């Protein structure tokens, strides 16, 4: 099996990128809820203390304060674990950020099951569904270090709200050096026409590894990183569905309300039908363990994804 080159944790890349940007742009402000350690932002606080606001363990206030700072012209990153940021402060996100249209950059750290062993309180398997149902916010789940760096650079200049969620495990590189990152524009990482893997966030690595496994069986795979889940690149999804025989969506999220259902709705309404499977966390009392252990339980590892592909192909 081919290997992917290993990279850093997206969390680390986020922190390094933001420090670099904030040194050059004094209007960048980070707001934390006792989350600077979790967000790898201790160096930010040490190097740029005047650009960091700490509100303590108070996520509702975190988002409200961030909205006020943004209204005053600051480029504000509200940084907190995704599980708290998108649940405890959902009404602040809806009203103070999205409805009021203050361009806060909401950063959900250790998203999905990154805090796998800490249990359901710390999992964020609802965040994409919850925010997809709110008007005026872009949702980004970067796959690797490149997508993380580019999404943070993009967020600085965005004039409307954005939510970016990523994990804390060191993640493999999935992109070639010539990759181009644009909001709402999915990236085709690998070409093929039997199986389409439509993935977001840290499941892109697993999809790419699955494609390598399937290649050995003579099955060719297209792998698409849908880093922007909202607005969804519907054109890329439709074009991929027309090209490939089956489609598997993969996301570190509950199977309800996320990437898979977004793609399905898009395809159905375009009158396109193909064997289709949504891979993600089932609606059940979530297993605990490391991120990769949990991926295994829910069919989200490379091996399990390649098995699912073979099963789906066998039924055509």
């Amino acid at each position, binding site marked *: 099996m081919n290997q992917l080159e290993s990279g850093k944790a997206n969390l680390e890349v986020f922190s390094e990128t933001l420090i670099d940007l904030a040194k050059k742009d004094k209007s960048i402000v980070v707001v934390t809820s006792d989350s600077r350690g979790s967000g790898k932002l201790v160096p930010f606080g040490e190097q740029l203390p005047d650009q960091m606001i700490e509100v303590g363990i108070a996520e509702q206030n975190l988002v409200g304060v961030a909205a*006020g700072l943004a209204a*005053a012209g600051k480029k504000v990153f509200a940084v907190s674990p995704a599980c708290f940021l998108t649940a405890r402060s959902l009404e602040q996100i809806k*009203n*103070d950020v999205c409805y009021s249209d203050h361009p806060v950059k909401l950063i959900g750290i250790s998203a999905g099951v990154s805090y796998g062993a800490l249990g359901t309180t710390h999992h964020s398997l609802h965040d994409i569904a919850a925010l997809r149902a709110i008007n005026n916010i872009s949702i980004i789940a970067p796959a690797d270090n490149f997508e993380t760096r580019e999404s943070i650079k993009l967020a600085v200049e965005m004039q409307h709200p954005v939510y970016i969620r990523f994990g804390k495990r060191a993640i493999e590189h999935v992109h070639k050096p010539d990759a181009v990152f644009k909001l709402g524009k999915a990236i085709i990482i690998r070409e093929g026409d039997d199986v389409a893997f439509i993935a977001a966030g840290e499941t892109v690595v697993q999809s790419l590894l699955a494609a390598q496994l399937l290649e050995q069986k003579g099955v060719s795979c297209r792998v698409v990183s849908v880093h922007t889940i909202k607005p969804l690149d519907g054109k890329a999804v439709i074009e991929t569905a027309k090209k490939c025989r089956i489609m598997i969506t993969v996301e570190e999220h509950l199977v309800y309300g996320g990437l898979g259902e977004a793609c399905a709705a898009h395809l159905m309404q375009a009158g396109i039908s193909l064997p289709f499977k949504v891979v993600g966390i089932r609606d059940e009392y979530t297993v605990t363990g490391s991120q990769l252990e949990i991926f295994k339980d829910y069919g989200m590892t490379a091996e399990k994804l390649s098995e699912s592909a073979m099963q789906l192909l066998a039924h055509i």
Partner: protein
Amino acid sequence: MTVREVREKSINYRKKLLTYIKHANAGHTGGSLSCIDILNVLYNRILDVTPENFTNPNRDHYIQSKGHSVEALYVVLADKGFFPESDLNTLCRHGSHYVGHPTRKVNGVEHNTGALGHGLSFCVGLALAEKMDSMNHKVYTLLGDGELAEGSNWEALLTAAHYQLDNLIAIVDFNKLQITGWTKDVCATDPLEQKFCAFGWSVQHVDGHDIEALTEVLNSVPFEREKPSVIIAHTIKGKGVSFIENNHTWHHHVPTDAELVQAIQELDQALVQVIDNYTD
């Protein structure tokens, strides 16, 4: 603006907001009558916020956290020239931007409110930005007393004190009522002053219908250096109309034709008294 002119405005604003609530067949009658004198003094005597400087960040800020009293805000903004008063004929109508809670689609509104417990955190952000940029403008917000049960307010109170935001002024429309009844019976907030003090704020009380007292207290902020200020404005929900005062069922009750006529008559009588009392 003279005291007489400001007092006349208070009565005229009441007449207008009742008329627009009647026209819209919707609105928050009791709370709008309760806070209108506070808004009157803020916009006519205190705030450096005008239609001319509104798009410039170099000015004061007012955020109405108790967004449901929007009719009070709209009549004051119309009077200050933020939009033609005739726009209010579309209040709560299909497709109108003049919805039942403040939105930024209306000129003069800088934050969308309506869900309670949001304004204070937003103001902490504005006040922090003012401090970061070494600007001297003040940030004012109006809170309902029932609204204080929202826990998010107390998170914001902590942060404001922690950052010593003496450019932040919260005004509590302390009418002691909320939609269900007396606040002390719904979920008591007393002793309010001690709670604010314990959270590191500097507190003053005022009669929230006394134009001169309101002017004086608002001109004396911050009450202490390096502390945010809170004004507990003692008000009467429904103030100015006998049968609406202190009656929680008027929280969002719309007057009947006869009730509107009687309310306008009472307010016209009050207007005559103001004119008789002030010869300036």
